């Protein structure tokens, strides 16, 4: 920077360290809680160093049911994983195809089609939940993975992202491919798809997190406990009357629910940042 002042650098470090501690503390506490038995937590005197119940808590949470007809969390995690992958892959598939059509073809009502998709950007699923619920119920899709996934991929973010990226690809590539005799399918498979890999990966990261963290929609359309996702499951664990709440199980579940998306952010940070910045444009 402009000046070189050790004191200011020190203050910057201090601010950042305090920030990191404040940000990490709630999660640290949850991890600690997942290593104690119920009695230690209920006491209100939980130590801030790990206890010895971690193995017990994690195996009980993952593989066994509990009080209040709790499902094993392993099943919930599988449901969450299927939903998140379904949303991420489904959205990538339908939006790359439609963006390809909108950018590389001339067909009647192309502009209209683009706007029809574009408008969906404006309305989150929360404002139209009951009518959407009714349609999914009429189609017999309650308590199915299809019902969990399809309504959530009806949005424009992916299409816009791919359109934006396709627009930056030089026209000469298509002209060259056409001269070489490549058709629409060949051009897509051999030229466009390899070029789009980073964009696809970035969109995947964002959509995976979005899908994994869905709350309201799965809350409405899953009635069977075997279809519950982990984010819904944990909420049910702490709302049974207070005295019955098995906090050590609830916090173990919270930790398990954070692991996949947080790992994705940490290990695919570059793609995550790219996806976040570009889907918001």
């Amino acid at each position, binding site marked *: 920077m402009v000046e070189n002042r050790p004191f200011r650098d020190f203050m*910057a470090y201090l601010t950042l360290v305090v920030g990191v501690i404040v940000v990490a503390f709630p999660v640290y506490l949850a991890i600690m809680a997942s290593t104690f038995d119920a009695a230690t937590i209920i006491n209100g005197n939980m130590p801030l160093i790990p206890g010895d119940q971690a193995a017990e808590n994690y195996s009980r949470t993952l593989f066994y049911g509990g009080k209040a007809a709790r499902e094993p969390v392993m099943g919930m995690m599988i449901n969450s994983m299927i939903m998140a992958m379904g949303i991420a892959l489904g959205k990538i598939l339908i939006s790359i195809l439609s963006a390809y059509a909108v950018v590389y073809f001339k067909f009647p009502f192309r502009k209209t089609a683009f706007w029809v998709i574009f408008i969906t950007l404006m309305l989150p699923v929360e404002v139209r939940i009951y009518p959407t619920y009714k349609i999914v119920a009429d189609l017999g899709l309650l308590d199915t993975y299809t019902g969990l996934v399809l309504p959530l991929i009806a949005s424009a973010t992916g299409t816009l992202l791919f359109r934006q990226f396709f627009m930056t690809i030089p026209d000469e590539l298509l002209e060259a491919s056409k001269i070489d005799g490549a058709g629409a399918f060949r051009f897509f498979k051999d030229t466009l798809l390899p070029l789009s890999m980073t964009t696809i990966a970035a969109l995947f990261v964002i959509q995976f997190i979005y899908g994994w963290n869905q709350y309201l929609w799965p809350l409405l359309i899953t009635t069977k406990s075997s279809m519950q996702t982990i984010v819904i499951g944990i*909420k049910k664990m702490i709302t049974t009357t207070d005295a019955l709440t098995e906090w050590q199980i609830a916090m173990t579940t919270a930790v398990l629910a954070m692991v996949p998306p947080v790992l994705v952010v940490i290990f695919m940070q570059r793609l995550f940042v790219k996806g976040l910045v570009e889907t918001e444009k």
Partner: protein
Amino acid sequence: MEKRAHFSGWTLPLLLILPQMAITVIFFYWPASQAIWQSFLREDAFGLASEFVGFENYIDLFKQPEYYRAMITTAIFSTLVAFFSLSVALLLATQADKSLRGGHAFKTLLIWPYAVAPAIAGVLWIFMFHPTLGTLARPIRAVGIDWNPMLNGNHAMILLVLSATWKHISYNFLFFLAGLQAIPKSVIEAGAIDGAGPLRRFWTIIFPLLSPTTFFLLVVTVVYVFFETFGIIDAVTGGGPAGQTTTLVYKVYADGRLGGDLGGSAAQSVILMVIVIALTAIQFRYVERKVQY
């Protein structure tokens, strides 16, 4: 913008666009139009018949004191979360922007809460501030404050603001940092040569140059508080105590689900749609301005 070269033919592009169109129409346009239509209907108590009642659902809505209360709650909640998450994120971003040794590690350590589901964030915070067993609730109670977010509406709101802010700092931080890094160093150096100290440089050079980012983040944060905090509210307070933390979106959910008042719930949905469209329109106008900038 248009491509110079195209493929010809109609059937292939229509087939390519068909999946998205079908899903959009079935799960977006159809339900959205149903919401608008339902907002003009009233169902009888058993949900067997419904009649057209014009704007009565809307008129009823604006007669309810609860609706105004939900509006005020939403306004307070958005203002507080926007203020705290933007200012904390800006403070952290300006520090991380200084070329410090190990600066990149701080970025990783600050952005991961983005990946935590809102409902899970709520659970983490209620555990910390639980009146009987929360690690941080004990010192508060020890000072003599009767801390109880389950019974006290203000305490519940504080807890919601804390959890919602905690979750959103990472997002604002990331965009502020990107915005700061885009400011040319030469401008700041010029300010320094003219004798402006760091604080002066921040308020007269950096902050104004950052204002497009700030404005964009303000809109995004308000949209976030309106919609995505649903999970936090449902996990932490369930809209209570006594409806004191019920926001507009939560009320749509509660009235339709628990109250069975589908017409009233649909009317609220339509009002929310108008609000979101307005917010998005503002954001797009600004984005165009940024391009010229």
